[in-house]
């Protein structure tokens, strides 16, 4: 058990030193359409507007919990009624749900106007690493990744948007701790996937 724990701690650190090259070098693929500073400043200004006009902060992860709640109401209403989280947060179409669907619409518009529609299942960089026939592996990894993120976000109180942007810009202690852990966990896992 201790050895496993040690391996979990040491492997990603050792992996960080390894090179990524060729098809697995992220820089071989297209960059952002706009300057990241321009986009960041835009998101900063957007956060002023959500605070000033809606008394809300930007966030995304709770939208998935709302969807889970709606599915629960259909398929397991009695089970759901017994769960603490849904008692505190009954699924409702609110400001956050609208924001959630708006993000998809905005992304469609941006990708459309920029000619960046991908229409593919396997990301290019993933394919270069795991092969063109790795659809099942990608599905498993993606589902597990999504499940861990949702669980972690609910436990920590937010995701990369709620804590990572909205919380850190309010200088919230919880958000700085959480965001640091998001990146520590993410760097370790991505290194295991791409550098070993």
């Amino acid at each position, binding site marked *: 058990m201790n050895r496993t724990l040690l391996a979990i701690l040491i492997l990603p650190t050792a992996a960080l030193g390894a090179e990524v090259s060729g098809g697995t070098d*992220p820089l071989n*693929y*297209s960059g952002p359409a*706009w300057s990241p500073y321009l*986009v*960041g400043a835009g*998101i*900063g200004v957007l*956060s002023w507007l959500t605070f*000033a006009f*809606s008394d809300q902060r930007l966030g*995304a992860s*709770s939208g*998935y*919990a709302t*969807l889970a709640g709606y599915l*629960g109401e259909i398929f397991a209403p009695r089970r759901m009624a017994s*769960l*603490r*989280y*849904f008692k*505190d*947060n009954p699924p409702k179409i*609110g*400001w956050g749900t*609208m924001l959630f669907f*708006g*993000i998809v619409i*905005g*992304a469609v518009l941006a990708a459309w106007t920029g000619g960046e529609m*991908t229409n*593919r299942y396997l990301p*290019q960089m*993933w394919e270069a690493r795991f092969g063109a026939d790795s659809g099942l592996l990608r599905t498993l990894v*993606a*589902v597990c*990744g*999504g*499940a*861990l*993120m949702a*669980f*972690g*976000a*609910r*436990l*920590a*109180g937010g*995701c990369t948007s709620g804590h990572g942007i909205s919380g*850190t*810009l309010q*200088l*919230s202690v*919880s958000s700085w701790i959480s965001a640091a*852990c998001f990146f520590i*966990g*993410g*760097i370790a*896992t991505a*290194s295991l996937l791409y550098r070993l």
Partner: protein
Amino acid sequence: MTEKPHTKKPSLSQLMLGLIFGIVFGFLLQKGGVGKYHILTGQLLLVDFTVVKIIGTAVLVGMIGIFTMHAMGRVKLHLKPTRVAANIVGGLIFGAGFGLSAYCPGTNLVALGQGNWDALAVTVGLIAGSWLFAEMSGTLQRGIGKWGDFGKKTLPELLHVPRGAFVVIFALVLVGALYAIGQFTIR
């Protein structure tokens, strides 16, 4: 860990505002390239610094505006309570999932919008994980949610520094950090 229930029914105009703000957020994120698998994974491999540049600039600009408006009594803050154990454990679990999927909950919606269909699998996982958390929410709230509970706290309060001074100094630190990252990174 769990938010207070929103008892007030949102007005139609607020719902429309939510939709518009979402569209702008999604548009900006896509233009920033953070719907792209290789840019997100590239950040976690410490090769592509697009994500850090976006977040850093958003925090710099957002912080200055929010605290200015707050000082003028125009906005309320929306802080999440600091629960050290839940923040750390939840944060690390989130990070592990982030590394696996590459899309985080927000950028997953962007990936979906631009036609990265593996985002659908991430979505299934996110919904399942939300349910799993709900299943355990009672136990977690009585346990880990209580460890290291400091309530709503900001960095200036923690360090006993006046808020205005902290914001000014921190803004300068962020500008310096963003400049340094810009100098030492290819992208």
